[in-house]
């Protein structure tokens, strides 16, 4: 086996894994607080990609700079979805919570189709093709930036949840909803913020991904699936687990191309899912739930 190639793929896997991790952290946060799985997660990420695409084409602002705008827009989208839909279905049986969110995903997907059409669009960004070499391996500058920003965004989210007054309320509501209501926390509003934050992370991941792959309306399913696999890998509701799970999936998918054609990527991620369900169904870092 070619060692240099393997190293190259390892680096690429880690870099992409950071973005997987970021979007999965959002999915995991939403599950941890509300106990619902956001089946529109990947579609939100696609909308994030289109928003930064739009900003790039219309204003010429680089996706790395428009990231706060994409994240902010998807935060609002998540906040609105939570307040209008998800807060009403929290007490429903789990099977019934699936449909409204799958429907949300379909709506978003078709909105993207309506606004931007079915074509793949790949914008050329300032750093699109820049690279540098590290030993025998070549590193894409845009992948490295995307990875660094993904990690920075994740750390910022961790700190926000750990230290800020709102973050503590989010953790309290996730821990014990009844207790949170009784101390006077406005749990519905906290839920809105938590869903908004989870959505914002996937919106940010979308902006980071834009320079790396062409965007089209139907990418959402794959992204939802990827985030879902990562969350299960790391342990449902465990944010650190989601980040590590993202890195593991990124590296596994990337290294697997040594043996399998790249089009079988999904086989690898689902294979990993099956393995983890068999040997450690609570996920690598899961304990509770």
């Amino acid at each position, binding site marked *: 086996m070619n060692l240099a190639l393997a190293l190259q793929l390892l680096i690429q896997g880690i870099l992409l894994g950071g973005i997987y991790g970021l979007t999965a952290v959002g999915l995991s946060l939403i599950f941890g607080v509300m106990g619902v799985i956001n089946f529109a997660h990947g579609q939100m990420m696609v909308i994030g990609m289109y928003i930064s695409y739009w900003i790039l084409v219309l204003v010429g602002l680089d996706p790395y700079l428009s990231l706060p705008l994409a994240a902010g827009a998807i935060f609002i989208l998540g906040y609105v979805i939570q307040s209008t839909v998800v807060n009403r279905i929290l007490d429903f049986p789990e099977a019934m919570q699936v449909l409204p969110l799958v429907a949300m995903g379909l709506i978003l997907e078709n909105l993207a189709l309506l606004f931007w059409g079915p074509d793949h669009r790949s914008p050329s960004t300032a750093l699109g093709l820049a690279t540098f070499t590290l030993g025998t391996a070549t590193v894409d500058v845009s992948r490295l930036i995307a990875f660094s920003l993904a990690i920075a965004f994740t750390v910022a989210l961790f700190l926000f949840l750990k230290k800020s007054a709102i973050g503590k309320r989010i953790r309290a509501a996730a*821990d014990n909803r009844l207790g949170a209501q009784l*101390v006077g926390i406005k749990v519905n509003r906290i839920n809105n913020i938590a869903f908004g934050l989870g959505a914002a992370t996937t919106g940010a991941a979308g902006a980071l991904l834009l320079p790396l792959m062409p965007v089209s309306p139907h990418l959402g399913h794959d992204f939802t699936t990827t985030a879902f696999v990562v969350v299960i890998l790391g342990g449902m509701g465990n944010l650190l687990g989601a980040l590590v799970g993202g890195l593991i999936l990124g590296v596994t998918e990337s290294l697997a191309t040594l043996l399998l054609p790249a089009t079988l990527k999904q086989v690898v991620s689902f294979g990993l899912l099956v393995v983890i369900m068999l040997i450690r169904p609570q996920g690598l870092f899961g304990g509770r739930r």
Partner: protein
Amino acid sequence: MLEVKGMDVYYGDLQALRGVSLTVGEGEVVSVIGSNGMGKSTTLKAISGLLHPRRGSIHYLGRDITRLSPSAIVELGISHVPEGRQVFPSLTVLENLQMGAQFPEPIRRGAQTMEQVFDYFPRLKERLEQKAGTLSGGEQQMLAIGRGLMSLPKLMMLDEPSLGLSPLLVETIFEIIHKISQQGTSLQIIEQNVHHALCISHRGYVLEDGAVALLGPSQELLSDPHVCKAYLGL
């Protein structure tokens, strides 16, 4: 200060309370007793806004609070320390206490209130950085009461504070509850530990099948033949 009138509460189609009326006066300690499933917790849930009565009204300090949200009711000064403690297990003791103060005035006086809580429960101060989920049952009860005090309540409602505690700890908890009432806080206490509850309260209500079966000054209830037989095993 609290006046509940003719309250009917339902869980779906199931009626849990039938025309419950009760009052708590300024600085008064009132106990609500009754065996399992009689509607004691439901009464508190309705007062704190977790459930809304289908009929009847709840007034507090002259205000109609029947339809207010739990958050608004806490802000007005009613604190409900629920059955089963309901602390935040993955938050530290300190964070749990901080979460008790949600509104400007309680937040402003947070440090001072916390000192008071440590005065009552020195054990909590030793465990500030410990996750609440790792506390013993008794310590969790202390934390739940402490957290309830952080909102600076004028009326505190305690749902079975002595449940599952060792006899020694029951004594301690009731001593603290007595101290809290002496600071001027009105209390409504639900208890299966009828003797203790009536000993520290001025008046008592007996709930049976979702309705008030008996009420009166605690001393009278303690000597009431029905209460003695049904609840004190005498």
